[in-house]
């Protein structure tokens, strides 16, 4: 039951984008078309899940036992950077068209606050291994949900008459605010 609430909570209640404000840059940058958003979301989920595992291992087998928890920041970011590099190489070898489509956004996953945030939050909440993995997958899916929803709304907005100053980031943020409000309604769903 505990695992279910972590999973469900990460997707809806404590959604990484709409509640923790993590992953805003790609959220605003890649959410103009649904398929781009979907690919970004899935790539992020993939990296997040692996990061959850690797950061947990490094944290609990190396850093904490030796009292080196202040090295969390440096180790986590290096792990993430390497993982993204590996994913990039993998995608380039196995599916060149996908690589082309994702363009610059693949390396940008490295500085996606969501992934670093995942590693840090998981360490902060002191999750055990299974909980950390569930949290990683759940938050990735939550990010994907938020970014795909945003893309769907923005595709519709493209056809609407948005006042000039609001176009782009302005209206995207206001939409995000309304989405955040809506997601507030999910609080308390899990007892």
């Amino acid at each position, binding site marked *: 039951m505990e695992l279910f*609430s972590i999973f469900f909570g990460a997707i809806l*209640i*404590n959604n990484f984008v709409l509640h923790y404000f993590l992953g805003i840059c790609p959220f605003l940058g890649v959410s103009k078309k649904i398929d781009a958003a979907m690919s970004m979301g899935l790539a992020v989920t993939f990296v997040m899940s692996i990061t959850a595992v690797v950061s947990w291992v490094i944290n609990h087998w190396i850093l904490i036992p030796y*009292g*080196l928890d*202040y*090295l969390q920041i*440096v180790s986590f970011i290096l792990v993430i950077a390497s993982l993204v590099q590996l994913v990039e190489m993998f995608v380039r070898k196995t599916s060149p068209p996908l690589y082309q489509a994702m363009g610059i956004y693949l390396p940008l996953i490295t500085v996606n606050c969501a992934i670093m945030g995942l590693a840090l939050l998981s360490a902060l*909440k*002191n999750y055990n291994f299974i909980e950390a993995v569930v949290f990683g997958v759940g938050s990735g899916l939550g990010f994907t949900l938020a970014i795909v929803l945003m893309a769907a709304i923005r595709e519709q907005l493209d056809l609407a008459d948005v006042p000039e100053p609001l176009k782009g980031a302005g209206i995207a943020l206001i939409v995000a605010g309304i989405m955040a409000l809506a997601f507030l309604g999910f*609080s*308390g769903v*899990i*007892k």
Partner: protein
Amino acid sequence: MSLSSRMVAVLTSIGLLSGGFLVTVGFVTKERIAFNKKMEIERAILTVVPGASGGRIVYEEKDFTVYAGQDKAGQLAGFAVYTSGAGFQDKIVLMLGLDAALSRINGLAILDQKETPGLGARITDEGSFLVYWEGRDFSRPLSLRKPPAPSPESLSASEVNTVTGATISSQAVLGIVNSAREKLLKLNQEGKLSLEGDNAN
């Protein structure tokens, strides 16, 4: 120097230099940070165990630590339980204070919560919520009174007022306290809470 050996040399030196620097910083700040953490717990114990001047751990497990609050003479002034549970939004961490006989609640302090500001967050407010926990009977499970009674006197010995507009957050706190109560009384029966025991850290 060839390019790849230069790359390796640069990365290694940067790694070593920053590593060394960070270890120094980590070392210098380690004590202060541990002190800050300890102070936070101590302050909470002093709040919920009147008369205590310090606390010692008598039982510890994940998410549930029992401290013995001792006065200046070393006598047991009461117990404090540091525990947490699920709130409306996220985890609620609290310190529950009991008297030495584990028969009455001395006080309650909310240490960490992320409830809705202005509504659920009012569980941290002395006047709206915390004051009602003082003097409650610990021998039976506690319950919430809703709508809230006008004064602490009109509540029965095991009732606590609900915070208006924050029923779920109040219920969350009640749940945490009640399960802590069950656990604590069981530990006491099993003799695991003695000051001299090897459970003490």
